């Protein structure tokens, strides 16, 4: 007899393991192991009781008028203090971020792989401009709405293909890249996150979230410097994370939008692993000085406006 894994059993009864080898394994255990069978029966009964308890909670109270008035006043004040960002008439405003500690090298991660150095610089400016778009440029008017309609039960799921093509098109077709002659107004290097590919394996509560030693980066995955022609293909993360390495803008937009209060500033990204799985570790600060680390998976910023978040911790 094997010890019952109650979390796994709960996942099985809740349908989270449907169609997976793990689900098949748990089903076999329930069928053949008396301890698992008894636990499954007990948990199933207990879950029915929990469902009844949750139904007893009843409907929520409505939003109190005083709170509603306060929120609407705050929104009206927000109109004057923080007007919505309109479609760009010129260049995206440079992002701002907290002061960097002295001695910390600000690097702009270049791109490895074949191509001319100029290609690398253009790729860097391309996603840098997209980051500026994330910071404040409205692409809303340029993107047709085809909502998935998940909360409108009568709607057919939209194709979304046009939106996806728009979303993954090179920035010049989206109008987010600044004109070359205005490069001086592009986001400053200091405002862009450090990107590394350490391949370290992080865990919840890892001390590495708070501090990393430079020597933890394997030589072939050292922090990348601009115009460093010694980049090798080995410095580029493995395929699950390669899309994010090449173009992190959409993912960073999702990360930014998942924190309050603004402005949210991403300071570092490490393409690594979390509990053994490929993941990007993102360090960021929020408008109230909060410091966070957030772990996202390879699907971050992918189709469906997913963030693919795996973990999040407050560092302050």
């Amino acid at each position, binding site marked *: 007899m094997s010890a019952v894994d109650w979390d796994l059993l709960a996942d099985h009864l809740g349908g989270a393991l449907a169609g997976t080898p793990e689900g098949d394994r748990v089903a076999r255990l329930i069928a053949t192991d008396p301890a698992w069978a008894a636990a499954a029966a007990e948990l199933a009964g207990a879950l029915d009781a929990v469902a009844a308890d949750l139904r007893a909670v009843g409907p*929520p109270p409505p939003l109190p008028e005083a709170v509603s008035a306060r929120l609407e006043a705050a929104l009206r004040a927000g109109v004057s203090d923080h007007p919505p960002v*309109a479609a760009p008439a010129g260049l995206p405003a440079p992002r701002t971020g907290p002061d960097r500690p002295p001695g910390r090298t600000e690097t702009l991660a270049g791109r490895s792989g074949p191509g001319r150095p100029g290609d690398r610089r253009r790729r860097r400016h391309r996603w840098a401009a997209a980051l500026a778009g994330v910071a404040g440029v409205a692409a809303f008017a340029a993107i047709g709405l085809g909502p998935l309609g998940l909360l409108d039960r009568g709607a057919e799921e939209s194709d979304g293909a046009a939106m996806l093509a728009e979303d993954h098109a090179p920035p010049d077709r989206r109008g987010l890249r600044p004109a070359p002659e205005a490069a001086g107004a592009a986001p400053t290097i200091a405002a862009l996150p450090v990107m590394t590919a350490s391949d370290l394996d992080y865990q919840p509560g890892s001390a590495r979230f708070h501090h990393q030693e430079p020597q933890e980066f394997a030589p072939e995955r050292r922090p990348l410097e601009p115009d460093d022609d010694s980049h090798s293909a080995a410095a580029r993360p493995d395929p699950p994370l390669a899309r994010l390495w090449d173009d992190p803008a959409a993912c960073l937009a999702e990360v930014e939008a998942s924190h309050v209060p603004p402005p949210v500033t991403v300071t570092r990204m490490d393409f690594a692993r979390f509990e053994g799985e490929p993941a990007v570790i993102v360090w960021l600060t929020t408008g109230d000085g909060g410091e966070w680390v957030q772990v996202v998976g390879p699907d971050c910023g992918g189709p469906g406006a997913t963030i693919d978040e795996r*973990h999040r911790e407050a560092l302050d």
Partner: protein
Amino acid sequence: MTRPDDRDADLLRAHVTGDPDAFGQLFRRHRDRLWAVALRTLGDPDEAADALQDAMLNAHRAAGRFRGEAAVTTWLHRIVVNACLDRMRRRRAHPTVPLPDGSHPEGYGGKEPAAPAADPETALVVRHALAQLPPEQRTAIVLVDLQGYSVAEAAAIFGVAEGTVKSRCARGRARLAVLLGHLRTGAPPAPTARGNRGRGGTVSSGSEAGGSQ
């Protein structure tokens, strides 16, 4: 007839292009549901009001970045949920010192305004139990079991796979079963820091369910 989400999209577009009243109209269309999510997740009306205000101001500013890949209401819910999750995680990182009488100055404590619950006493006990769940499990149960969103809708709000939501709900309900006394002693211990089902492969604590289940 204009579909609800078309109306939301029109209002958001109007807001982005400078209509000073549009976002307020959008907020009024969804405020009760957004308030319910914040209140049920955080448990305290003042905290819920603060979180909702932070979230709406964030949405107000970030409207121009809305990519239209999900419904506007999904996007609003996601911003509120994330604001609540950040508050809960910060609370866990900096737990408050209990007052001399043993109560806590903030957090779940049955401070949710009295609502006409079917069973007020059970409702209070359930709210206390919910407060002890990990933030992601608590929020998943609020969305699916209390607010009635489907797993797919909750997954869109969280921005994660449906299997992840199923795992959060399943493990949260199992923990509630222990906290509410529906599982006898010898069953799983009180809630631990373990998270949710891993993304395929081996099970590991804190990992998330994935896939397209």
